[in-house]
């Protein structure tokens, strides 16, 4: 009887399940992308290729406004959170355990542990009070809030890089007459740069994806793309949302690919 060769790592049915999982993960997204190019109104029957829904979305001032808001918030939040995360990573890694280290780690990772809805409610209470007393209703609230929950994502690759960095490189720089600042500027920072960019990338994507916190603390007219889409979904299904989703998906994919290129180990 013919028999497939025995492999110790094979477990019956596992590969089949895995294949079905990947198919199930991607099929809905593929459908979404495909139907964003559909000519008709129906999101379930194909009526021919067109870019109509992209035109509809682009002609919509609300969408334009939301896009601008999303990009401003994500850019500012990414820059702010990455700068803060870089400083924190330089402070916390590569030194012996010290009193308060656990506290700092817990604070940095806190946004990952608290359910988003709870943070959103908490920020709603705080921003409502501040808005009432100061009268300021700008994007500042969203930028600071996004920066806060982006910090753990930006911190992750930077810390990993710092921990993996060969400490003797800095010792060698000091041995070669570099002052501590020169060592940082000429050795540590250039070596850290890819991780800093990678962290900024993750922070940008994270900010771009946020729905719940934004939905709770935005002032009227401050929709971002996700909150705009959430508002649309509450009403009827509209294919232009497919188009916006596809555009966001493409942006995320580009940023993620960049992230992987930056963090990939060079051998």
């Amino acid at each position, binding site marked *: 009887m013919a028999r497939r060769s025995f492999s110790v790592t094979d477990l019956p049915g596992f590969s089949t399940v895995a294949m079905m999982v990947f198919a199930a993960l991607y099929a809905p997204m593929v459908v979404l992308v495909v139907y964003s190019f559909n000519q008709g109104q129906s999101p379930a029957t194909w009526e021919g290729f067109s870019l109509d829904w992209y035109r509809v979305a682009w002609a919509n001032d609300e969408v334009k406004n939301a896009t601008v808001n999303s990009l401003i918030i994500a850019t500012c939040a990414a820059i702010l959170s990455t700068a803060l995360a870089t400083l924190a990573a330089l402070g916390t890694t590569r030194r012996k355990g010290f009193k308060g280290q656990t506290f700092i780690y817990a604070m940095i990772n806190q946004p990952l542990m608290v359910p988003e809805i709870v943070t959103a409610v908490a920020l709603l209470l705080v921003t409502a009070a501040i808005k009432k007393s100061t009268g300021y209703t700008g994007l500042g609230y969203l930028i600071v809030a996004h920066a806060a929950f982006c910090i753990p994502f930006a911190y992750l690759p930077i810390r990993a890089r710092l921990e993996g960095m*060969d400490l*003797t*490189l800095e*010792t*060698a*720089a*000091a*041995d*070669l*007459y*570099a*002052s501590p600042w*020169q*060592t940082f500027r*000429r*050795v540590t920072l*250039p*070596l850290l740069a890819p991780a800093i960019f990678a962290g900024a990338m993750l922070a940008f994507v994270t900010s771009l994806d946020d729905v719940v916190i934004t939905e709770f603390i935005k002032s009227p007219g401050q929709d971002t793309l996700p909150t705009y889409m959430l508002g649309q979904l509450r009403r009827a299904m509209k294919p232009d949302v497919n188009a916006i989703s596809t555009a966001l998906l493409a942006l995320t994919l580009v940023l993620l690919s960049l992230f992987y290129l930056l963090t990939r180990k*060079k051998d």
Partner: protein
Amino acid sequence: MIKNQGGTGVGKTSVEARQIAKHFGQGEAIVKALDNVSVEIGQGEFFTLLGPSGCGKTTLLRMIAGFESPTSGQILLDGADITPLPPNRRPVNTVFQSYALFPHLTVAQNIGFGLEMQGRPAAEVKDRVARMLALVKLEPMAGRKTSQLSGGQQQRVALARALAPTPKVLLLDEPLSALDLKLRKEMQIELKRLQTETGITFVFVTHDQEEALTMSDRIAVMSAGHLQQVGTAREIYNNPVNRFVASFIGESNFLPATLEAGKARLKAGGLVEVSGAKGQTGPITVAVRPEQVRIVAAGEPDALPATITNLVYFGTDTHCHVDLADGTEVVARLQSPATGDAGLERGGKVGLRFAPGAAQVLGD
């Protein structure tokens, strides 16, 4: 404590470690990585710190570089106390075990790094880098990233980088340990050449006795945070002061004995001429190198009776293991004869003799 024997050998002192101690932990759990070590290293000397891992040799080297500070004691450079200076203010450079080449810089940029940090003019840096590249024969590699180099080439870049600022002392921390045997042999010769050409004091750390013996002007043997013996390769090999030195450098046979009018009365019987005796009384140990042991016919005058227990063939040598009358095992290293087995066989009765001056009384 072993005093620095025979001065620095070559005139003026370059580096001096004075009563250096390094302790970790406190109270009962205290670990003495270095225990009051004093050593003087002469200008232009190739000085090797030799010992097993954990003996404190790297710690001492890192203190000279300024990466670690001693619990007590001083490091002097050309007579000036440099103990409180940070590494970037010390005119000494290090070749690291892992090379620590900057991966984001080219070969030339790596070599020029120290000069640039010293604020030397660009033209001087360029000129000096070119000279260094020539010195280590890496001119064609100047523009490469260091990750594109072989292990031996990286090693040479590390050397050039450390030599470029013309340090007063070059510190080498097991720089050859990552290379394969053939390359290691080449680099040993290369290092010695560079040291002679530049005239810079080299302080070399290794656990490899052969490396130490072939390159050094003087060797300091270290163990457990103590200096065991300082001297030239010959002194250390021929006149080891104690059992540790005798067994760490080369191999030795150890024979229990007592002193009798300047000669040693072996426990196995027989009276042998010894050197290194310092008027000890009571039981002593005599060390004899295996290649200084001669196998003669049983019953020859002055020969110790022995029985062959094993013969191990090593190509050029054959090791002949014998038991003396009291059961002490002795190894004799014999040149393998071109044909046959020299008539020796397991269980055979033979006589043992030591070459003149070969038997050494150990200090402890």
